[in-house]
């Protein structure tokens, strides 16, 4: 078994799901012959044909809306939105319809669809290609929101998302598409959609992150270790529903925590996690919950993007602040 990167893991999961279940369809812009601009759907058109893989016209609201119609009819559409900046037109369909079809019809019609999109910065992409809109989706009741941070977790979580009977927004950190490699068994094993992953255990401080920030958190943990600070690293992975228990258990042990995300600080999902920690873990808190996040500015164009994106250095600094807190 060779090591594969994250985008290959996505591809593997898609192929596995399509093989297993003829109701799984793939649709989006350039997902056919071209195999997707990031190659996530590479080879699927050749393998599964024009009845399973659809190059749509250039219409994001349509891609989401059409997926709802397919899902209500019993298919399991996996739709790709090409870049993060173009998911906004899908919010109307996701908030007003996908997330509600089950409850509106008291379970008569359901919406087992997946909306995949790359997310985040760090690849020197053009304008509108590097945003992190996860908090918007995580605020919509009836949706699930998943962000993998390694090839194996991408594989297992995407399988789970496709098999889930409800709509899932699946955001893939484009920076990690080719940056991380891992051996992934194509065994069709799904991962749970409601568990965070403790990637590293440590008793001094909890680093909580998702997406590309998980790598930064791991790097930060290494750096902290060098100076004798033992960091626990949690990959949230499933923002919605949030696995509060795993987070709380860790923070209650360490008493200190840093939450890292790329999205702008204000209104980011880090606020939700911090709020839950203080709601249920106040007594254990030995220091303020630190958030290391994108600034409350528009994601800059590539030349300044490195100054915008949170990184291991900022996480380390925050962890040290938390440690130093009396």
């Amino acid at each position: 078994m060779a090591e594969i990167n994250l985008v290959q893991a996505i591809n593997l999961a898609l192929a596995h799901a399509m093989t297993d279940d003829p109701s799984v369809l793939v649709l989006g812009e350039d997902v056919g012959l071209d195999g997707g601009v990031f190659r996530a759907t590479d080879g699927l058109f050749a393998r599964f044909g024009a009845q399973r893989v659809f190059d749509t016209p250039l219409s994001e609201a349509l891609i989401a809306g059409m997926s709802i119609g397919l899902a209500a009819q019993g298919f399991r559409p996996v739709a790709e939105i090409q870049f993060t900046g173009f998911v906004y037109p899908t919010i109307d369909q996701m908030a007003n319809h996908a997330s509600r079809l089950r409850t509106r019809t008291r379970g008569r019609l359901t919406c087992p669809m997946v909306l995949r999109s790359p997310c985040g910065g760090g690849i020197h992409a053009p304008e509108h290609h590097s945003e992190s809109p996860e908090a918007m989706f995580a605020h919509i009741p009836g949706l699930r929101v998943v962000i993998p941070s390694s090839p194996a977790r991408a594989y297992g979580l995407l399988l789970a998302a496709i098999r889930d009977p409800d709509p899932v927004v699946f955001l893939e950190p484009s920076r990690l598409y080719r940056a991380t490699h891992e051996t992934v068994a194509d065994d069709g094993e799904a991962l749970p959609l409601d568990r965070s992953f403790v990637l590293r255990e440590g008793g001094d401080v909890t680093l909580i992150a998702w997406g590309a920030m998980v790598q930064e958190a791991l790097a930060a943990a290494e750096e902290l270790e060098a100076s004798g600070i033992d960091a626990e690293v949690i990959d949230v992975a499933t923002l919605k529903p949030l696995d509060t228990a795993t987070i709380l258990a860790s923070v209650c042990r360490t008493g200190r925590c840093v939450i890292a995300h790329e999205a702008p600080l204000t209104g980011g999902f880090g606020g939700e996690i911090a709020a839950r920690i203080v709601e249920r873990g106040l007594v254990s808190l030995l220091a303020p919950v630190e958030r290391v996040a994108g600034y409350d500015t528009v994601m800059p164009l590539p030349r300044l993007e490195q100054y915008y994106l949170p990184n291991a250095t900022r996480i380390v600094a925050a962890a040290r602040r938390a440690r130093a807190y009396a």
Partner: protein
Amino acid sequence: MRDVEDDVVAQFDVRLRRCLDAAGVPISALPGFAEDVRELVALYRGMVRTRQFDAKAIALQRTGRLGTYASSLGQEAVAVGAASAMQPDDVLLPSFREHGAQLWRGVSMLELLLYWGGDERGSRFHETRQDFPVCVPVGSHAPHAAGVALALKLRGEGRAALCIYGDGATSKGDVDEALNVAGVWLLPAVFLISNNQWAISVPRARQSAAETLAQKGIAAGLPCIQVDGNDVIAMRDTVGRALQRARAGAGASVVEALTYRLGDHTTADDASRYRKDAEVSPHWAEEPIARLRAYLAKVGAWHREDEERLLIEIGAEVETAASVYLATPPQPVESMFDFTYAALPAALIEQRSAAVSEAGTPEARHG
């Protein structure tokens, strides 16, 4: 902008189909189904049922026993004509004003009252299990219709999706996106514009400079046609042909039904703020029920006793539905949670308990 010598590379036209004139007199040869008066009586009954239901719904709203309600007064032929052209296993994706189509398809009066009374069970639809619920965000169901149609096509089932929306909805981009994909993928869908000439206070002429709304389909390469939407025979015929075409694999089409909203936009609206009675009155002479009745009477297929019997029968149905509705207890509080996901996530289980215990003391709520 044009010179005569420029080559014409494409040409289009939009035609108007009519069968009966406003007085119920045939204008052209009637379609085959109209030879069987029982078919026409069924259509008549469907329209009367819709109108009676409408009247009751408004009465319930006026007395505080129903929520905001959108009447379809005067537009019954669009909904009933279209629905009657469907096969049972076609899929209906209606806007919020097509009660006549829903009733024809087997949605019960009770279900409609529950929905408009603010109870999700009204969209449960025991009879027509694949039809979509009413779509409130205008036009946003057109992409669903494309998805449903793709599903039907992929399964090769010879079924079609029928999506109904208003003249106002034709300005929504998602509708255009749906038409476009239906065109390029040859989807088995019919997009029916119920052009009642108003989108709340905005008259048709201020909604678009398009000479017809049918021609919205030209942008998607779709065949398109106008039809007299107050002529239920023409409606059934036109939508029927469009659906047949779709089921046969020849692709989607756009039908614009010309009708008129005789009432307020909804019970929350006061149309006198923006349109004069003088504009409305002439349209009463065109309304669909009297028109078909006139025709039926002329061919000797409808008499005063028939009318009386029908009104009594439907009146009883409506009253029964209303009393069952009024006697229906609200859903339990936990029902707010139980359909959010297939299986309730842990955090929601906690919230549900909290909500249920909260609800235990409703008097405290208003303290």
